[in-house]
């Protein structure tokens, strides 16, 4: 079985095109309230560059390549770890008024209010 990956010319362009389109659509659905965690989260996602850094470093055969590869892994790991840490922290802060099922969160508050008023009257 051949498991090697080769992507040339148009295949690469198709991958780029589909990925860009998917990114545009997915990100377009993220509400503005989450734009900061979205940005740090997508920042985390491009931390995958650390994998490329590891490839370069493990294949290094000169001191120069070792040094640059080391820097690549160092920076890539920082990008990934830092991006994850801040995104997770921020997302944990977003709480709703009361425990409610995910799909009803936008109405939960108003319902509770109406209910409350009814009880009062």
């Amino acid at each position, binding site marked *: 079985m051949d498991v090697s990956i080769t992507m040339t010319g148009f295949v690469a362009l198709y991958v780029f095109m589909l990925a860009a389109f998917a990114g545009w659509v997915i990100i377009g659905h993220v509400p503005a309230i989450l734009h900061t965690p979205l*940005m740090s989260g997508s920042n985390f996602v491009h931390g995958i560059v650390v*994998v490329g850094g590891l490839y370069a470093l493990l294949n290094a055969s000169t001191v120069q390549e*070792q040094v640059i590869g080391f820097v690549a892994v160092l920076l890539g790991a920082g990008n990934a770890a830092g991006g*994850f840490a801040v995104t997770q922290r921020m997302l944990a802060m977003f709480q709703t008024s009361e425990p409610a099922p995910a799909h009803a969160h936008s109405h939960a508050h108003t319902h509770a209010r109406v209910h409350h008023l009814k009880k009062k009257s």
Partner: protein
Amino acid sequence: MLANLPQLIIGLADLAAAFLFLYGLQRMSSPATAPSGILVAGFGMVAAVLASFLYVFSVSAAAQPHLGVNIGLALIALVIGGGLAWLSGKRVAMTAMPQMVALYNGMGGGAAGAIAAVELFGNKTQGATQLLVTLLGALIGAVSLSGSLIAWAKLDGVIKKPVRIKGQQAVNAVAMIAALAVGGVILFVTLGGAPLLLATPTWIYVFFGLALLFGVLMTLPIGGADMPVVISIYNALTGLAVGLEGFVLQNPALMIAGMVVGAAGLLLTLLMAKAMNRSVANVVFTNFGDAPKQVQGAIKGSLRPVEASDAGIAMRYASKVIIVPGYGLAAAQAQQKLYEFVKLLQAARVEVKFAVHPVAGRMPGQMDVLLAEAGVPYDLIFQLEDINDDFAAADVALVIGANDVVNPAARTEKTSPIFGMPILNADKAKQVYVVKRGEGKGYAGIQNALFYGDNCNMVYGDAQAVLVKMIEAVRGLGAAAA
């Protein structure tokens, strides 16, 4: 088959990572599912990183003798780079989030540039296309690295003012053209042309030097108010660089992740520019930030100050209050106090909503995070387009630390620098209270007609101190009644 096993596992892990990234980002479409989204993406990252150690089974003959050292270096780099960033990410204050994101972003750009450097110095690329893409990724990655670092320095207050030199744009253009020309030389020489003036490795150093210089020059003159756009642009650029290097390394996971982020960054850039009613080119190539403004027509009327306690009590007896928080609120660290006041109002059956402008803060959505940090439930937080019609029915609009985003001049004054910018219609409320430190102008240095309106009163003072007075006044009422 067995010989292919490491390759197979790497391929599967990368495939899984690419899927989990997309799925994780997709789960960010709601605050309820978002925390699981980042976790899912995190699993993908760990899987891909662990699997990449299987590259040791397929290293080139030249690298074979260095394998032990290289594995050691890789582990050290992962632990140091990942560990330091993890700790700083866990500790950073929410107000400092924009510069932190800029820093992490620069790291990603630097990593992409470094990978390209290994390819270039080792002359590992095959064919003109790969070389061209490597150079392009190197250029973008390096620009993103130095540009993000300057953005970090500006946001962190290391660089306090936009730095502008005479003929800035010409200098920028020269740096860019020079970088492209040197890239052309490298392309020419590597593809078999005669050496030109310098040895190829020297040209590569010059190439990276010029790219880094361009990133610095491009970011230095941009004003503080434009930072949300700048951060978004560099996020997109780093994604693009990673995607391009993914092509060079023939790694589809990098290509997909990079391109998705590139598209995301582009979308956010356009949204931010739209929220400021400016084109992206206008942000990057002109110096709006704090350039001198033309003289405006004098605004009639006078500013009417009111006591914080009176404003607080008035809100206690209102039935609908909309709060417009701005960066000044965060600068005064008063979010907690604000929510304490809001809870008092809610206990008195006042309906309270928060109205957030897209550019309230130094990066897209920062105000939402700052409110969430203070404990404000996200179902009380509304965005501009969802709440703007509600102001007309509101008894009170409380503007705290915001200025330009509620300036009606954006609707009417054709000569105003912010004309056409979407604003929050706070002036439509029956009563407006503006909490402000003094009579100064906003970030854009423009007079605000809202403050002179018949329905507006000013509450002067530090946001924190003002809110404490409001809380005391409302609490005092409760005590008197009981």
